[in-house]
């Protein structure tokens, strides 16, 4: 007669403690992936003497965004890069403007060219540069493709032949 209420009180007390422990101290717990995206420069892709794609980080002091990297790429190799034998197949243009946006998982890069003005190697340079920036800023490249937009239409979604994935 006198014993069971004592048990009930104990149960209620333990419930109370459990309830109040909702904000009690804890150990260190995992909170998910860490943010990423710092880099010493933007990775630009040029072609070496053999015509292979070669990454050349431009020391801008920060990674920057895809559009910045693409516009830097369009200005062509720096004198140091040219001395190292790197060249570009992107035609020189008076207007170095581009537009970059995401379409679902893909990255759309709109260039100020007509499609015939850009050779395949030049297109690879743009695709690899955009994907590399995306990769270094913490994005995955496995399922992400680049769609190039021209003044006369769009390319198929493309991936970079020299990047993982």
């Amino acid at each position, binding site marked *: *007669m*006198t014993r069971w209420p004592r048990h*009930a009180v104990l149960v*209620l007390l333990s*419930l109370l403690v*459990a*309830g109040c422990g*909702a*904000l*009690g*101290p*804890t*150990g*260190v*717990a*995992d*909170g*998910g*992936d*860490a*943010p*990423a*995206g*710092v*880099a*010493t420069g933007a*990775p630009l892709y040029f072609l070496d003497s053999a015509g292979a794609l070669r*990454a050349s980080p431009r020391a801008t*002091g*920060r*990674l*920057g*965004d895809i559009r910045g990297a693409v516009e830097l790429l369009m200005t062509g190799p720096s004198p140091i890069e040219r001395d190292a034998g790197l060249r570009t197949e992107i035609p020189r243009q008076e207007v170095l403007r581009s537009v970059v946006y995401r379409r679902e998982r893909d990255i759309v890069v709109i260039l100020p060219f007509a499609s015939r003005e850009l050779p395949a190697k030049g297109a690879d340079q743009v695709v690899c540069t955009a994907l*590399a*920036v995306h*990769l*270094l*800023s*913490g994005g995955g*490249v496995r399922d992400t493709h680049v769609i190039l937009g021209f003044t006369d239409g769009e390319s198929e979604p493309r991936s970079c032949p020299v*990047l*993982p*994935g």
Partner: protein
Amino acid sequence: MTARRRQLVPPGLRGLRPRLVLAFVTVTVLGAGIAAWASYVSASESLVAETQTRVTESTRRQLAAVAPDTAYPPDQAALDRLRAVVGGQALVTYGGSRSSSEPEVHPLTPEIRAAVRERNRLVVQRVASDTGPKLLVGAPVLMIGMDGARRPSGIEVYLVHDLAPTQRQIDALARSAALTSAAALPLAVLIALLAARGVLRPVRELRDTARRLAEGDLGARQRPRGVDELAELTATFNQTAEALERLVARHQRMEADARRFVADVSHELRTPLTTLTAVVEVLESEVDRMPPDARASTALAVEETRKLTRLVEDLIEVSRFDAGVVRLRVEETDLRRAVLDCLEARGWRDEVDLDAPEGVTAPVDRRRLDVVVANLVGNALRHGAPPVVVRVRAEEPWVVVEVTDHGPGLPGDLAERVFERFTKADQARARSEGSGLGLAIARENARLHGGDIEAGNAPGGGARFVVRLPRRRAEEDQ
């Protein structure tokens, strides 16, 4: 055990209704409390989890958005900018340098610093502080190589999120949980009272019906309602009452039949007995001229006829008492005079000592008082030994007539049975001179007056009969 339990239950809770209500209210409030508490616990847990997720997600998103634009290696301005982007109490470190320490940041634990360096993952830890619980978030900013490998950049961001608002939300949840349980209380009491009334009403009605039955209302019945155990009990009760009523009715009928039979037989016997008595008296007057052997037979016949006449008369008297048709003719009577008349009429004056003061009067039926005194004195003369003493005295609010003999007294339990009909003082003596009804008739007469007769033994031995009659006339007699 039972006694102990009863002591433990307070007196106010022994009734069925308080116990029902208490049990119901306890169960309801306990259930409501547990339900409210369970929902409180799960709600507060999900609230905490949601808060933690929100804080870590927003930290990760803000850092990921600003990291590509952050100069690397970062200068002081870059660290301060990162701190400003995360907002609130945040600290950004890179090697030995750190963001400016305004506002003051809650001290970080060594564990979270170690975890940020070792795990390359976003980590959280909850700590208690004087100003309430805090959530510590540690985020290393990673650097990804062209091969996809993730390496620490050396930039570490720490955020201290104040959980006091969350604590307040949880407290509000607890209050509402307690309130919900408390709100169940009056409702539970109300429902319990209604339920108890529904359950207890048939019980109460059954109790009232049983009480009516106990008070002699054999027709008392309870209409069974429903099909529950109480209805079964009611049906059983009704069957019991019915059986009892049938049995009592049968007994009453049999008793009435028997009494009517006795009364009828007595009346039927009276007329031939009157004739027989007349014939026997003629025979008695001729007894001197009879031969001696015929003389004895005649005397026996005379004696037995007289006894038979008396028995029949007594039977008729008893029948009249049983039938309830006896009426008193009360008049204020001097008791000494009445007793003297009785003794003289029967020729007992010389055998009985009368101890009666003058002037003791009482409202009595003279004929019936005469029957009472004659029966008692005759009984004393027959069964007891002389001297037989009759004492009359007033003993408010009674007058008392006491008849004492000096015989062996009443043996054993005879004092209790002596007024029963046909009780024999001596079982061995099958035939007594009396009818066996005299004392029964005497007691009926005394009771008719509102008094009684008690039988017992006098201190010096010998039987003593005490008649008490009311000295004042009771109102309802007239």
